[in-house]
């Protein structure tokens, strides 16, 4: 039982990381019809920024993380202004390819600016742990879980209850109509990129203490976040979040109870089998194609 609880808490923690990244992907998908494969790379670059701020000024990791997220907001806005705004008329496949180009660009820029050696970023809460039902949970893990959930709840509140959230939902449902109704869709899309980059950065920094800050730190998260989006369905904002926690939980269970080396591979195979039977995801509705 204590092992199970332990696994549950670590699943919640890794699920939060995946969920934050997945939320970024879905926000961009819903507002600009584009699967953002560069979500992880955006997070990685800004995790480097936060780590540099932490190392050179010595402020607390939380402030450094917030500053990293601010730089992510700026980077997201730049990406939208410089690249994505010009890509309105490009086909969906080409839009995906643009994000591939963005990955390569960031992959080349990061070692140029920040050097090739991996850096370490500390935990937000450096020490302390408590036991619950025989499972030992660090305060940092609890902090990560709570921060992840809080941010998600705030975002959902924003989407459902505020005027700007309505603008985002209107853009998501039909961009042209939204524009005709006076919704500033350009600003909405720009905001989506900024928020997505910031969420990716937070995910990267939650992960950083365990795996150091390096160029390939987000590869795994990127794959899992995309899979979470497919699993939850691209039609709702909350689907991918549920998908992310499911992925985090399943992955931990598979690696612990079945095989530590093949757990990840089994997860991907299960995922492939799943999309054959439910191609629209857990909560996805079938979209009727109009010709």
């Amino acid at each position, binding site marked *: 039982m204590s092992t199970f609880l332990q696994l549950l808490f670590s699943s919640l923690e890794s699920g939060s990381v995946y969920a934050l990244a997945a939320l970024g992907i879905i926000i961009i998908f819903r507002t600009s019809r584009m699967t953002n494969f560069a979500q992880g790379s955006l997070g990685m670059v800004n995790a480097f920024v936060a780590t540099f701020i932490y190392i050179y000024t010595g402020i607390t990791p939380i402030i450094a993380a917030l500053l990293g997220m601010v730089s992510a907001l700026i980077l997201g806005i730049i990406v939208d202004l410089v690249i994505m705004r010009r890509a309105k008329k490009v086909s969906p496949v080409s839009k995906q390819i643009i994000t591939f180009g963005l990955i390569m660009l960031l992959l080349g*820029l*990061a070692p*140029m600016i920040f050097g090739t050696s991996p850096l370490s970023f500390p935990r937000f809460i450096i020490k302390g742990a408590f036991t619950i039902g025989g499972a030992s949970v660090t305060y940092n893990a609890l902090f990560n879980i709570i921060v992840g959930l809080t941010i998600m709840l705030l975002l959902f509140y924003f989407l459902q209850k505020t005027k700007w959230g309505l603008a985002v939902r209107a853009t998501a449902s039909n961009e042209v109509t939204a524009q005709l109704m006076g919704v500033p869709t350009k600003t909405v899309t720009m905001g989506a990129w900024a928020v997505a980059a910031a969420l990716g950065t937070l995910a990267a920094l939650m992960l950083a203490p365990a795996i150091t800050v390096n160029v390939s730190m987000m590869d795994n998260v990127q794959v899992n976040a995309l899979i979470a989006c497919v699993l939850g369905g691209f039609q709702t904002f909350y689907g991918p979040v549920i998908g992310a926690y499911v992925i985090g939980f399943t992955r931990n269970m598979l690696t612990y109870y079945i095989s530590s080396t093949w757990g990840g591979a089994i997860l991907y*195979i299960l995922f492939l089998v799943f999309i054959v039977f439910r191609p629209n995801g857990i909560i996805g509705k079938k979209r009727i194609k109009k010709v």
Partner: protein
Amino acid sequence: MKQLLKNPYSQFALFIILMALAPTLKQLGLLNSSTVIILGTVMFYSIVGIGLNVLLGYSGLISLGTAGFMGLGSYLSAYCTQDLGLSFFPSLIISVTVPLVIGLIIGLISLRIEGYYLAIATLGISEILRQVFAEMEFVTGGFSGKNAGYPQLFGIIKLNRQMTYILIAAFLLAILIFTYNFIKSRTGRALLTMRGSEAAAQAMGINLLKYKLIAFATATLYAGIGGVLYVHFIRFSYPSGWNLTLSLQILACIVIGGMRTISGPVFGAFVVFGVPELILKRLPVIGSIDGLAYIFTGVLIIVVILFYPNGLIYLGNDLQSLFRKKRVKNNG
């Protein structure tokens, strides 16, 4: 003569003859051996690119599993020749059949899911393959990688590096001609219709399943061939080489060179794999910066998609017509 130059087959042959001259030029001292290796690299990545173009350009489906399939081909061929003692062609057949079968299975899956899911699904498959490369040590040699020799044809003729280079050139020629014919046939037209609108294609009696499977099969088959040529030319294969970045670079070849053209991916392979090694790295000051090749490729992808969506292969034609227009204006 002029007509001969306009014929695509003779163009392909001429290009390959030019490429095949490289080892001779090296012996004459005009090229150094690293340039020959890079040209060989460009050629087998061209083969992979041409295959992926059938999938991406002609049928509009994105696969991110290319590097994984290439790796699979390379490991299998290394295993067949080194551990089982097979000669080159039997090992080639085995090493391309396995990726082909997996490609067909993904083709079946792809029919169930929408376009943008497919890149994600193939990403998952390449992750599985990478895990397999790292863990199945008796075939792949695990993290330390796997060695292979230059190809041995029919069990008797042992090739050296120059001859392997010529062999790759011969493969590229065969693939260029085969793909050209294939695209100009009924199949190619069906794929193009499918890309335009699946519903319209279906209404015209095009069997979506069949043609999607053909597109996937071609892409994985060529990736397998590319992997086999890779391992017998570079003579080494290790798991971290077959990552997402390589898949993206091959995708970049097609996008930069030109989708829906036969020679586009070849041109793109020169730009993506040749230019950084041959030109960028030799530039003063900026040449030594890490990651310059990635930035170059990334920026090119974005710029080409935004401003030149047909690909750089048309650059020559467009410049020519621009020049002609100017001349006409000046005359008038």
